[in-house]
């Protein structure tokens, strides 16, 4: 599992590459928190186009980030989830709190 990221203006772009399961959840959690803590950003895009696998552990990670960023008024957008990841996202109802952008 690797994470690529860059900031453009006040938007943080995070790209998750590989397989997100319990084994990699702590890494994803702390990486995104480090990137979002203390930095002036207005929104976060999470690019999932290279995320080959995700189980419900990933849902927990996403909901956790949502709870941290919501008080700061920072929305999370999900980009390009592959069908298998999208199926887990839809089942969990995550799109009620995060917008799918492409």
């Amino acid at each position, binding site marked *: 599992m690797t994470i690529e990221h860059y900031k453009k203006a006040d938007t943080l772009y995070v790209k998750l590459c590989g*397989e997100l*399961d*319990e*084994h990699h959840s702590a890494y994803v*959690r702390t990486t995104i928190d480090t990137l979002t803590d203390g930095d002036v950003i207005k929104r976060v895009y999470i690019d999932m186009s290279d995320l080959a*696998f995700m*189980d*419900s*552990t990933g*849902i*927990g*990670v996403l*909901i*956790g980030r949502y709870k941290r960023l919501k008080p700061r008024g920072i929305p999370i957008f999900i980009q390009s989830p592959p*069908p*298998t990841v999208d*199926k*887990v996202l839809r*089942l*969990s109802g995550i799109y009620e709190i995060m917008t799918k952008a492409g």
Partner: protein
Amino acid sequence: MENQMTVIFDAVTENEAFARNTVAAFCVALDPTVDQINDIKTAVSEAVTNCIVHAYPDKSQKGKITITTTISDNSVHIVISDTGIGIDDVDSAMQPFFTTKPEQERSGMGFTVMESFTDSLTVERNKPTGTVVSMTKTIRGADWKKKTH
């Protein structure tokens, strides 16, 4: 014809990818679609994660997870068991969003995912201790789809 394989491995997160990929590889003989293979991988990952996160709270003792996968003409039957502490209230545990570890940012969606991604799911007590999760999924291969649709 039935064909069966069993793997036993340590209940550690390093083995999650091994577990789901091993079961998926064994099922390839049924000529599943990509979607079906992904469903199996996800369901296995959920069950194995439950064993690792919940079954063996005493981390000083290495718990084991056993997976027996049986394939027949057009279906796969997967039994994932541990000998850990077991589940107090299975009915509650199977409710969407139920988790005993909310402080760890757990979604509580594990059994819901297993149920949705397979055709049948049963959760029983293992003897003398632990939990047995059984899942069945019908696999009609890509060729079958082409022939009938």
